[in-house]
Every structure is written in C-alpha cells, then in structure tokens.
C-alpha cells in the first residue's frame, strides 16, 4: 500500500487535498500529520498551505516542519508543494512586511500590487479563479494534461523565480507568474490541483504514480 503524508501545520483546509488524493489514489493511504516519524515513513510528501506567510512560517518552524521538509526533499521521495506550501519553499516573501522562507528554491514572493493592470484594464487582487498555465518543461506531473489548461488560483502574492530553468509552468496576470517549479523529486504549484476539477485531479494522480525522477 502506497502512503502519502500531507503535512499538517495547522494552517488551512487539508480536508480538500486529502479527499482529492483519496479520490484519485486507488487505495492510497493519506496521512494528515505533523509527526516526523510518519512524514519520514511515507512514500510521498505533500506540503499544503493557505493563509498568511508569517503565520505559516511561524508554525512550520515551531513544529519542526522545516526539518521534515528538508529531510523529505533530500531523501529523493516525491514531494509536492501547493500554494503557500510552494511559496514557503522560496527564499523570501514580501508578505507581512517581509518574511524569510525555507530557501529550497532561489527567488522571491512578490505582491501583485494595488494598481495591477493588463492592457489598461484593472485587475483584481487576489488573483482568484481559473487561469491558464503554460507548461514550460516536459514533466511526468504534466502527463495527460493539455498545455494551457485552466487551474484554480487564489493568491495575492506570486513567485518570481531566479532559476528560470527550474520553472515548470507560467501564468499571466498583469505580470508573468512562475506558477510551477520542478527540481529532481520536488514539484510545486501555486494553483490548487485539489480544486481544479479534471486537470487538477490528473496532476494529483500523476503525482501518486511518480517515482520522483525526471
């Protein structure tokens, strides 16, 4: 039986992602947990997150999730970060007056700004709803998902990666946003696959069958 640890650091709604994994998982055992032994024992690890980065980072550090994440990434097992769970892997976020993050990827998390515009039209913040994702690399997690499919987003801060070759997907919302990154056994998404209907479920399914190699 395959197992996946969804790291629970007290932020946001883990029900959705757990249910979606169970739905596509064909018998996968989903552990919603912060217990380091369980995270270590799981075949796959998922770092979710919603809410403000300062609170998320505070809980991540308080509960030792930073260590669990570092260990899981180093172990080579498939690792998926979603939304704030993705942003937390970057070096630094502008949110809450500036918060240092875990630094597994080089780059920053920036505010969309109050004056966001596209071709003269004002854009609302948060970026909320279904936007197209262009797949900038081939990756096992994009399997059977058409390029430029729409995924569900809800965020006010976006990732600007420094390592362009690690960007796996991009979206345009007033600015170019790096909405997916990939390196070795790690894949991250700004959008919510668990809320992105057929294409999102396909991505989770791909994650559950991925061996962590590119």
């Amino acid at each position, binding site marked *: 039986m395959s197992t996946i640890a969804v790291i629970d650091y007290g932020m946001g709604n883990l029900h*959705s992602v757990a249910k979606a994994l*169970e739905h596509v998982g064909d018998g996968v055992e989903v552990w919603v947990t912060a217990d380091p032994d369980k995270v270590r024992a799981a075949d796959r690890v998922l770092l979710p997150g919603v809410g403000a980065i300062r609170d998320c980072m505070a809980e991540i550090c308080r509960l030792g999730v930073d260590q669990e994440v570092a260990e899981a990434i180093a172990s080579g097992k498939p690792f998926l970060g979603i939304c704030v769970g993705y942003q937390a892997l970057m070096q630094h976020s502008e949110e809450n007056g500036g918060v240092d993050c875990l630094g597994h990827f080089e780059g920053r998390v920036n505010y969309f700004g109050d004056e966001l515009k596209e071709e003269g039209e004002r854009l609302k913040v948060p970026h*909320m709803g279904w936007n197209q994702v262009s797949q900038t690399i081939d990756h096992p997690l994009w399997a059977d998902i058409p390029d430029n499919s729409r995924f569900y987003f809800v965020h006010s801060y976006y990732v600007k990666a420094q390592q362009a070759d690690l960007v796996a997907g991009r979206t345009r919302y007033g600015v170019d946003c790096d909405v997916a990154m990939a390196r070795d056994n790690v894949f991250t998404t700004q959008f919510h696959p668990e809320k992105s209907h057929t294409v999102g479920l396909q991505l989770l399914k791909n994650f559950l069958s991925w061996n962590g190699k590119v």
Partner: protein
Amino acid sequence: MALAKRIIPCLDVENGRVVKGVQFVDIRDAGDPVEVAKRYDEQGADEITFLDITATHEGRDTMVHTVERMASQVFIPLTVGGGIRTCDDIRTMLNAGADKVSINSAAVFNPEFVREAAERFGSQCIVVAIDAKKVSQPGETDKWEIFTHGGRKPTGIDAVEWAKKMVDLGAGEILLTSMDQDGVKNGYDLGVTRAISEAVNVPVIASGGVGNLDHLVDGCIEGKADAVLAASIFHFNEYSIPEAKKYMQERGIEVRL
C-alpha cells in the same frame, strides 16, 4: 491568456434539500444538494455556492453532513453561507470541506467579526454577502442600501461604502445580491454591481435576478462582475452550464471551457 469569468450555480438548501424561491418566498423543490452539485461539477461549473436557509439546529447539522458528502465528490471550490455567525461556525464549515464561507447579517451586526475571521482563516476564504436594494428615486443620484433578514430589514447603510469597509476589514470577495431583482428574472442590478466592482479591489460576484444568458453577459460586461451567480435557470434546466459558457464566449468573455 487571461483569468476566466466564473459561473457559479447557487444552491439554496433547506433541511437537506435544494429549494428556490421567488423573492424569498414561493419555494420549489429542486433536489438533493449533492446530486445537484455533482451535476454542475460535471457540466463544468467553476465554483458552487451553497446557502443554508434552514433555521433549526437539526437543519444545521444536516447542512454540515451535506457539505462533507459534497466535498468528497466535487473538486471545485465550494462556498457555504447562511447562518455563519462565529469563528466556530467557520471552522465547522471549513472542516466539513468548504473552501470559503459567506458572511451576511453577522457582518452588519458586528463588522469586527469580518476582521477576526479574515485574520484567523485568511481573506481568501472570507466572502461577505451584501443584499442591496435601490433606495434612490428616479431622477436622484443612484443610491443603494443594505438590507438584512432576507431583504426585509433596511439598515440605512450605503451599499458601496459598506463594500469598501468590508474589504478594508479583510473580506476577500463580495457576493452582491440585488434584492429588487432576486428571483424575478429581469437581470442583475447592473448599476450597483458596477459601482461596487469599481469601488473595491477584490472580486465581486453578481447575484440576483438572472432569467436568461444575456443577463450573465451583462453582469460581466456592464456590471464588471468577476463572477456571475445564478440558481433557477440552471436548476430547472432552462439552460445548462456549457450553453451559458458558450454563449458568453461568443460575446467575447473569457470562460473556462
């Protein structure tokens, strides 16, 4: 590449059944909420909103179970509203599987509740529902006021100012229902929709009064809404979600097909 306008079917749920009234009375049964939600999910709805119009405790418990059942079968965002008064209510609904909650009357009675909720759960899951009715006379400058209790009680609060205040307190989205229009199928009140959408920086969902697909188009283009909500045109199979999306796309609106 652009963000799609969202189409949101709304389910008014009472004691575990979908109902739909005309101007909040004359209720017709429209089925089991989970079945209805699954149908919309399969048709390509972008989100689902659930309004609990039950008054009893038993009805509330039924609602929590309904949300739980739905969340394990529907993988698009789910908003739950109706009777959300405390952070415990929010926690219960989020734990049951809701992605967002919609706060209505409780925000009017205690605006600080919106701040507390947004700080605790994040603005992304706090929708403030505004029921607005036009109070200006023909010839006067347009003015809309907030009503509570299903549109029965005026509050004297200006709708546009109120929306701005709610966003300042942390609302991540505004669900705007025009009370004159709700259930009568003459289209959204485009004036108030546009006024509020232009006044705030967060997404605005237009609601109340959809009778045909042009109303959805008008809500997006003239009303400048970021999402359009409708109930009866979908429940009673007058139009399907794909028909609505195709119609909107043909008129130049970005949709998710």
